[in-house]
Structure formats: structure tokens, C-alpha cells
């Protein structure tokens, strides 16, 4: 009967309403986190800019380029991939975007041969995906995607630099989501190791280079500086990824909220129609019944009634 349908619809509307509340809350939380994450991205910029500049000045001052982190390997047998994803889902295509790009690069360059790649995964989502697909995972780090700290970056960079210096990998690529604006994020794959010479040794920005004094030697400083530079780059990538994650989640949750709203509207309409239908049917029944009674009253009374009157 119509009343049953009405009840079912009412229940569904209620569940969509509570869903909408949840997605709305997640949207607002993500939105507030974007701002914070963006601030962290810009707060981290001076350090990496300055450190790059120091390296440039060192190079201009004659620091050798023979450092192991700078040396291109003649033969690239094994490639390391660093994939930066989130620990949590519900962020639209954020995780799958990075994962897919990394997997495509891996397949294209190594053919999926486990001896030719090493995976360094950040975030639960990347770990789950690659382990489910039977990829060999070299190292995975979780619990740091939301608000990465510099210590996190150092921990990860240390593992990667060790693998590179020991020759387990001859090149390392970094796949992450670049935060361009709240509306735009882009998945990029960048060279991480060896550190690209061009990116640090192009001529210093302004005029002739000053004659620096070095303490200790330029090479001695470079030795200490390059690992910090690598850490700073990874840290910047992780911060970008975190900001992108929040932006992606905010967008996903906004459209989920909109969808819930739309569904509630449609269901409300259906429910109103069902209710009206049942009311109409009820009225029809009452009218029909009343009419039947009225018609009966206009007919002559039954015989037994007349007999009863006569006896009285």
C-alpha cells in the first residue's frame, strides 16, 4: 500500500540527510586544512630557496661535482620510485591519480621486472594498492601524509639516499601531486636522485659572483649540504602533496554534499507524490463509501422494517 512506500522513502531521506551532514563536515574540515597546508608550503619555501642558492654559490666557487649524490650513472639498471599519497581515501581522484602515473612510468621503464625497480611508498593508499597488485615494496611510510614534518621527510630521504648511495638504485623518481592553486593540482614525476646538475649549477641570479671564503672547504660544505638539499626537496613535495590532498578532499566532499542534496530533493518529491496519492485514494474511498450509503438510504426501507412498524 502507498503508506508503506511513504515510510520507505522517509527512511531513505533521513539516511541521505545524515550522510550530507557528514560530507559537509568533512568538506569544511578539509577547507580549513587547505589554508594551513598552504601556509606551510610557503613557510618552507625560504629554506629551500636559500639552500639552492648556497649550492649555486658553492658550485660557482669551485666545489667539485664529483659528489655521489650528483653523479649520473652510466648504466641505469634499477630505478627507484617514490610515490607520495594519502593515508585516507574520500579524496576523489587524488590517490589514484598519483598511483596510476607512477605505475605507468614503472611499467614503461622497467616492464614490471622486480629486479629493476624499487618502490618507496608514502601513505597507506599507495601501500595497499601496490601490495594488492603483487608489486615488491622496498619501504613504506604511513601516518605522515596529513601534516608532514621535516623529521618525516628526513626519515624517508635517509632511506632513499642510502639505497642510492649503495647502488641498489641508479636513479630515483619522485611522483607527487603539485599544488598549483585550490582549484588546480597536477600529478608530476620528477627526478630525485641523482640531483640534477642543471637545477643547482646554473649561473647565480645577479651579476658576477662574489669571492667567497669557505669554512671548511667548498667540497666539505657541499658534502653536508647536498643531503639537506635532498631532504628539503622531499619535504617540499610532501607539503605540496598534503595541500593537494586537502584540496582534493574538499572538492570531493563538496560534490558529495551537492549530490546528497539533489537526491534528497528528488526523494522528497517522490514522497510528497506518494503521500498525496494515498490521500487521494483515501478521499476517493470515503466519497465512494458515502455515496454508496446515500444511494442505499434513498431506496425503500427493507420489508422487515415495515412489518415491525405495523406490529407496533
Amino acid at each position, binding site marked *: 500500500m502507498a503508506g508503506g512506500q511513504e515510510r520507505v522513502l522517509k527512511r531513505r531521506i533521513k539516511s541521505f540527510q545524515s550522510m550530507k551532514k557528514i560530507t559537509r563536515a568533512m568538506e569544511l574540515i578539509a577547507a580549513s586544512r587547505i589554508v594551513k597546508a598552504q601556509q606551510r608550503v610557503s613557510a618552507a619555501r625560504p629554506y629551500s630557496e636559500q639552500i639552492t642558492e648556497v649550492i649555486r654559490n658553492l658550485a660557482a666557487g669551485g666545489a667539485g661535482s664529483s659528489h655521489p649524490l650528483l653523479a649520473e650513472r652510466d648504466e641505469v639498471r634499477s630505478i627507484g620510485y617514490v610515490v607520495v599519497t594519502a593515508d585516507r581515501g574520500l579524496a576523489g581522484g587524488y590517490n589514484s591519480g598519483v598511483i596510476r602515473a607512477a605505475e605507468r612510468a614503472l611499467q614503461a621503464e622497467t616492464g614490471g621486472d622486480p629486479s629493476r625497480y624499487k618502490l618507496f611508498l608514502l601513505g597507506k593508499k599507495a601501500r595497499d594498492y601496490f601490495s594488492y597488485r603483487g608489486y615488491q615494496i622496498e619501504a613504506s611510510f604511513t601516518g605522515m601524509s596529513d601534516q608532514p614534518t621535516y623529521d618525516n621527510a628526513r626519515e624517508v630521504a635517509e632511506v632513499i639516499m642510502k639505497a642510492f648511495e649503495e647502488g641498489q638504485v641508479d636513479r630515483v623518481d619522485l611522483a607527487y601531486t603539485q599544488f598549483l592553486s585550490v582549484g588546480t593540482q597536477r600529478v608530476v614525476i620528477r627526478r630525485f636522485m641523482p640531483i640534477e646538475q642543471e637545477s643547482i649549477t646554473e649561473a647565480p641570479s645577479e651579476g658576477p659572483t662574489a669571492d667567497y*671564503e669557505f*669554512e671548511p672547504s667548498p667540497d666539505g660544505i657541499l658534502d653536508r649540504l647536498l643531503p639537506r638539499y635532498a631532504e628539503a626537496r622531499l619535504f617540499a613535495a610532501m607539503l605540496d602533496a598534503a595541500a593537494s590532498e586537502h584540496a582534493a578532499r574538499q572538492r570531493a566532499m563538496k560534490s558529495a554534499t551537492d549530490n546528497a542534496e539533489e537526491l534528497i530533493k528528488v526523494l522528497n518529491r517522490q514522497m510528497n507524490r506518494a503521500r498525496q496519492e494515498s490521500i487521494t485514494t483515501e478521499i476517493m474511498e470515503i466519497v465512494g463509501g458515502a455515496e454508496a450509503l446515500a444511494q442505499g438510504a434513498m431506496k425503500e426501507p427493507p420489508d422487515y422494517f415495515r412489518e415491525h412498524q405495523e406490529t407496533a
Partner: protein
Amino acid sequence: MQVELVSPERILYSGEAEMVICRTVSGDIAFLDHHAPFIGALDICVVRIKTANGEEKAAVHGGFVEVRDNRVIILSDVAELASQIDVEQARQRKEEFERNVEHWDDAEVEAGLRRAHVRLEVAGAV
């Protein structure tokens, strides 16, 4: 001269100063106005920034210093201003290191102890 103390997460200090004293791996060094261009690797040390109206201290656990165009830029992946140091925690860490001196390898203990010392010194609690 302009002084900046920059950590990976943010700029800790930025301002005018009269003198900066710090320690590179080969010894103490002080920078005054118009110092010659200089790049150095820092030791675990206390950086003292003397300004017209006082002195700012920071604990720096390794890092780099660059001097150029009358600007001193100190880069350090672990740096703390005096006001940010938790004295109690630093003291505990120091005691912990001292207790475990014989269990750990020397370099680690030494570095840890020096870090704790520098922290306490900056916080003025030695």
C-alpha cells in the same frame, strides 16, 4: 645588517642586527657589518644575534651560514629560539644521555649531550 635564521618549516628570526656569533666546524666566528662573502658549515652551537636593543639566542644543531651583500643567512634543519625551548624536556634528555653513556656508541652520545647542552645554554638554564 640583515639577519635571517631559517629552518625548513619557517623563518625563525628575521631582522636587523649588529653582530652575529656562531661556530662553524672549524671554529667560532663573528660577523659584523659588511663582512666579506662567506659560506660555512655550522657545528652544534649557540647562535647569538646581537641587536641594538639586546641579544637573541638560538640553538642550532648543524646547518649552514651564508654571508653576502650585508646579509647573514643561517640555514638549519634543527634550530630553536630560546623562547621555544622546553627546559624541563632538555634537562631530561641530558640526564637520559648521561645515564646511558656506556650503552650507546660514542658519537651518538656525544652529539646528543652537546645538543642538550646547547639547548640548556640558550634557554639560560645552565
